[in-house]
């Protein structure tokens, strides 16, 4: 039982990183990405391949996975984020499909069978096959992500991002380079998803393309919306709730999708801004006032 609880907590932790990073794109740039799982997958495969084929130690493979995912994010962001409107949603959707197909067909990535026997991390005699240690490792990365995003959002850059989200043209005539900001945030978010991917690969020790498809992208998007766009705590809650709820209702697995759908519909009717969101969709003054008080 404890093993099981530890497992759920570790998985929650991974989803928290994914949700937080996607929330940066959605909540702070006002852009929608439908291919976040692709960066998660790129991180997982990079890290797995490095450790299996080149015996790179995990603690070197982890940051490399983040860098590779971030580079793909940069390559995707530069051409698309300079455009106005929601081209990013379409391009990321396509990117997700392409990555999925490449992983399925490349010999190096093992095709549909994926990669097995990914070595668990090892550091100074600590065996991370023990779930308690792995949880600590995931918790450390979650804490790092939380700290990074919290500091970013509360810095002058966070303020510039909010200005871009509120009104891009005005932000630009203030001298804020809107496209540079969007591209940097997108790159950072892709890198964080890569971190989560690496952690996933070395935890499960077996990966195949199925875990990184559109389904996962939509799931993380749902977590962001449930928790609230632009809310850090909301992302943590959204990821936690959507990881734990399906487990609680496992006995009714046949009806799980129905419950999901019903929950989303209820949410959109009664709380379109998400559980803890500040409400970009239905901006209400009373809400933003409360938030201003909290921020003080």
């Amino acid at each position, binding site marked *: 039982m404890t093993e099981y609880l530890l497992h759920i907590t570790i998985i929650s932790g991974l989803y928290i990183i994914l949700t937080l990073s996607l929330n940066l794109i959605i909540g702070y740039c006002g852009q929608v990405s439908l291919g976040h799982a692709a960066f998660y997958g790129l991180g997982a495969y990079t890290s797995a391949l490095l450790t299996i084929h080149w015996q790179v130690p995990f603690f070197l493979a982890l940051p490399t996975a983040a860098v590779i995912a971030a580079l793909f994010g940069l390559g995707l962001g530069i051409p698309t984020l300079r455009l106005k409107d929601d081209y990013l949603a379409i391009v990321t959707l396509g990117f997700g499909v392409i990555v999925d197909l490449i992983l399925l067909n490349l010999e190096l990535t093992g095709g549909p069978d994926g990669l097995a026997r990914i070595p668990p991390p090892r550091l100074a005699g600590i065996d991370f096959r023990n779930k308690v240690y792995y949880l600590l490792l995931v918790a450390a990365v979650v804490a790092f992500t939380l700290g990074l995003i919290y500091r970013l959002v509360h810095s002058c850059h966070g303020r510039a991002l909010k200005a871009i989200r509120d009104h891009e043209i*005005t932000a630009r005539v203030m001298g804020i380079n809107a496209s540079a900001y969007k591209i940097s945030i997108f790159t950072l978010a892709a890198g964080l998803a890569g971190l989560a991917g690496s952690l996933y690969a070395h935890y499960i020790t077996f990966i195949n393309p199925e875990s990184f498809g559109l389904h996962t992208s939509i799931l993380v998007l749902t977590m962001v919306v449930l928790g609230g766009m632009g809310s850090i705590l909301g992302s943590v809650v959204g990821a936690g709730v959507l990881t734990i709820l399906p487990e609680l209702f496992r006995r009714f697995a046949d009806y799980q999708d129905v419950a999901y759908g019903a929950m989303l519909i209820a949410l959109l009717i009664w709380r379109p801004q998400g559980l803890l969101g500040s409400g970009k969709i239905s901006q209400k003054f009373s809400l933003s006032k409360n938030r201003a008080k909290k921020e003080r």
Partner: protein
Amino acid sequence: MGTAMLTLKSVHSYYGSLHVLKGVSLHVRAGEIVALLGANGAGKTTTLKTISGLIKPRKGQVEFQGEDISRLSAEAIVQRGIAHVPEGRRVFSSLSVAANLELGAFARRDQQAVKSDLRELQERFPILRERAKQPAGTLSGGEQQILAMARALMARPKLLLLDEPSMGLAPRLVKQVFAIIRHLQETGTTILLIEQNARAALKVADRGYVMETGRISLDGTAAELMDHNEVKRAYLGKGYQEVWEE
């Protein structure tokens, strides 16, 4: 009046394939208030957007203090000393009033001076201090316009571009906005102003240009334009007399 601070030389700008500015030439001298008048769709806002770098001209030149800025990015143009207040009081509604003001100084690096400028503006417009922590979206229309102008001043602009500052405001607030514009001129800011309210604009302006369908159709001193029937017609159509005298 000194030499020209800003000069547009037969500027052509497009929205996609739509030819909006068809050879606009105008100049603004240091210390002047210049009004840009004209009916809706004449290209006034596009002219301002072209100056501040939001739209790149296809042909022609924009010169600011002797430098060709027509190929520079919007960020670089702000740093040269041009601040643009877009139409419709675009404050950042989810950010506090104080944060809005601080963002006005985004392109500046002299943090100490920014702080003292902030205090100075809050003294001049006490409402900005009283509401400092409130989200800007909760301000009234007039307060938002004051905030938008004060935010532009935080950039310490040499040239201020104002796009319809009186739009949608009550008459009492319109007066207040124009009082601020006059005060800005006295403190040495050069202003290029777009206005629907041609009479009010010409009262504060030194000179004016009238635009029609992407071209400058008329220019002159404010006093000349005030009496010019062409201005009234360009703006108000044939039945201008009743409206103008009202």
